[in-house]
């Protein structure tokens, strides 16, 4: 039992950096459904979240997109996806030039250690993304 536990821990340590690179299949599929298969470039988004989360029931997040937010150039939507909650969607925000600044904050639940992805769509039709890995010590959905 100890051996298997040690082996399990070893696998976890080895696998984590690998998991940080590419999104899992269903996460990629959820993003593809959202973007309609359009090319998504990395960058322009700042995803603020604590790297180490001790309570997954309420995790503050802030997403900022580098955009002047004028009628000519603005962010139209921002979406957040997760890797390992029961559902891939976290939230979707709709913005426009009237928003003034492309910065949105909320509080979310995280079931376990996983990857989060923020996707932003600009009015010129381009899509941008930012990935972030977080470690969750106390999961949501277990405590009531």
């Amino acid at each position, binding site marked *: 039992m100890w051996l298997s536990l040690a082996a399990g821990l070893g696998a976890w340590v080895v696998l984590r950096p690998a998991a940080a690179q590419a999104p899992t299949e269903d996460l990629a599929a959820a993003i593809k459904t959202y973007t309609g298969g359009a090319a998504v470039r990395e960058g322009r988004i700042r995803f603020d979240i604590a790297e180490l989360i001790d309570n997954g029931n309420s995790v503050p997040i802030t997403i900022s997109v580098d955009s002047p937010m004028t009628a000519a150039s603005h962010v139209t939507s921002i979406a957040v996806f997760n890797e390992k909650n029961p559902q891939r969607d976290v939230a979707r925000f709709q*913005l426009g030039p009237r928003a003034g600044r492309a910065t949105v904050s909320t509080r979310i*639940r995280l079931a376990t250690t996983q990857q989060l992805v923020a996707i932003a769509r600009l009015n010129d039709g381009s899509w941008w993304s930012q990935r972030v890995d977080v470690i969750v010590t106390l999961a949501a959905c277990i405590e009531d």
Partner: protein
Amino acid sequence: MARTLITVPPSARRGEVIEIRTLIQHPMETGYRPGADGKVLARDLIRRFSCRYDDGSGSQLVFAAELYAAVAANPLISFHTVATASGTLTFTWEGDNGFMQSESVAIKVT
């Protein structure tokens, strides 16, 4: 009526970008969680939030959000808007079981 907490600066200069924070009391029951009797509790979520700004030239949508089970209980949403003219900001939350609530806040723009 659920309790809400809305933070809007009472006055702003014309063209200034202001931060708005909204909080509403709601369990955001996910529909994945078992209750004390072991049965899964029915889903009860706020699904949509929107903010409209009526500055005298008609009410315009400033910001909207679709929320899912991964949003924490008592959802807090913080965003920005441009203070164009004195008027009212109307916040609406809609959700499962016919949940719907609207709150209005006046803003003075100089």
